């Protein structure tokens, strides 16, 4: 599964751009949180057609889904980023069915979160802090 996250990000972001364009208003106006949420949600739907990864598989999806879900519900980027962080932390102890941890043996995986999920969560938390 090495390198799968590259394809996941590419598909997700292409879908995100498409989702934003679909909502294009007739005259210029700011892209609101609502616009972003809708586009992000449709990106997840698109993504789910290409990857079987779902929350609970110990991948970056465990950070991405909570971010999008919480942003849609609350409209608050900070809450969404915290949800992503909680999702990444939740991969600690999770048995992998997809992603990098499947093909690497050894001990100790129970004690650490998925690195990809943690990296994405850090990115999203930093993003939300920068938007404050």
């Amino acid at each position, binding site marked *: 599964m*090495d*390198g799968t*996250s*590259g394809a*996941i*990000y*590419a598909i997700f*972001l*292409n879908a*995100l*751009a498409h989702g*934003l364009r679909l909502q*294009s*208003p*007739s*005259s*210029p*106006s*700011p*892209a609101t949180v609502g616009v972003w949420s809708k586009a992000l949600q449709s990106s997840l739907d698109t993504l789910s057609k290409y990857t079987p990864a779902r929350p609970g598989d110990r991948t970056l999806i465990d950070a991405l889904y909570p971010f999008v879900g919480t942003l849609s519900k609350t409209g608050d980027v900070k809450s969404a980023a915290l949800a992503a962080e909680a999702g990444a932390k939740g991969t600690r102890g999770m048995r*992998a069915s997809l992603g*990098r*941890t499947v093909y*690497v043996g*050894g001990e*100790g*995986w129970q*004690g*650490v*979160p*998925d*690195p*990809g999920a*943690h*990296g994405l969560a*850090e*990115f*999203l*938390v*930093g*993003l*939300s*802090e*920068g*938007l404050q």
Partner: protein
Amino acid sequence: MDPALAKKALKSALMRVIAAEPDITNYDTIVGDGDCGIGLKRGAEGEFSVIYIEGFLLISRKLSLRCLIERKRLMTLPSSFIILFMSWRRTWTGLQGRSMPYS
């Protein structure tokens, strides 16, 4: 969305990824092949230099993703983040264009 705010947010996100390198490396040493943290850090630093040198929204779409990846000797997940950053920038560049609907 304000381009200055978008730039500030991206910088903050990249700083966070760079600062997380030791932890990510530690985790990936245990559950992966150990290159995740360093690769992410290099990717984020590479993106940083691009932001500073060429300007966030003025960057050419022609900037070769392949060149950036090869220059930084990036591996899999790091290259993913490069794709993420490049796609994101491209999205913003498009959205900020005069003919585009979002301000």
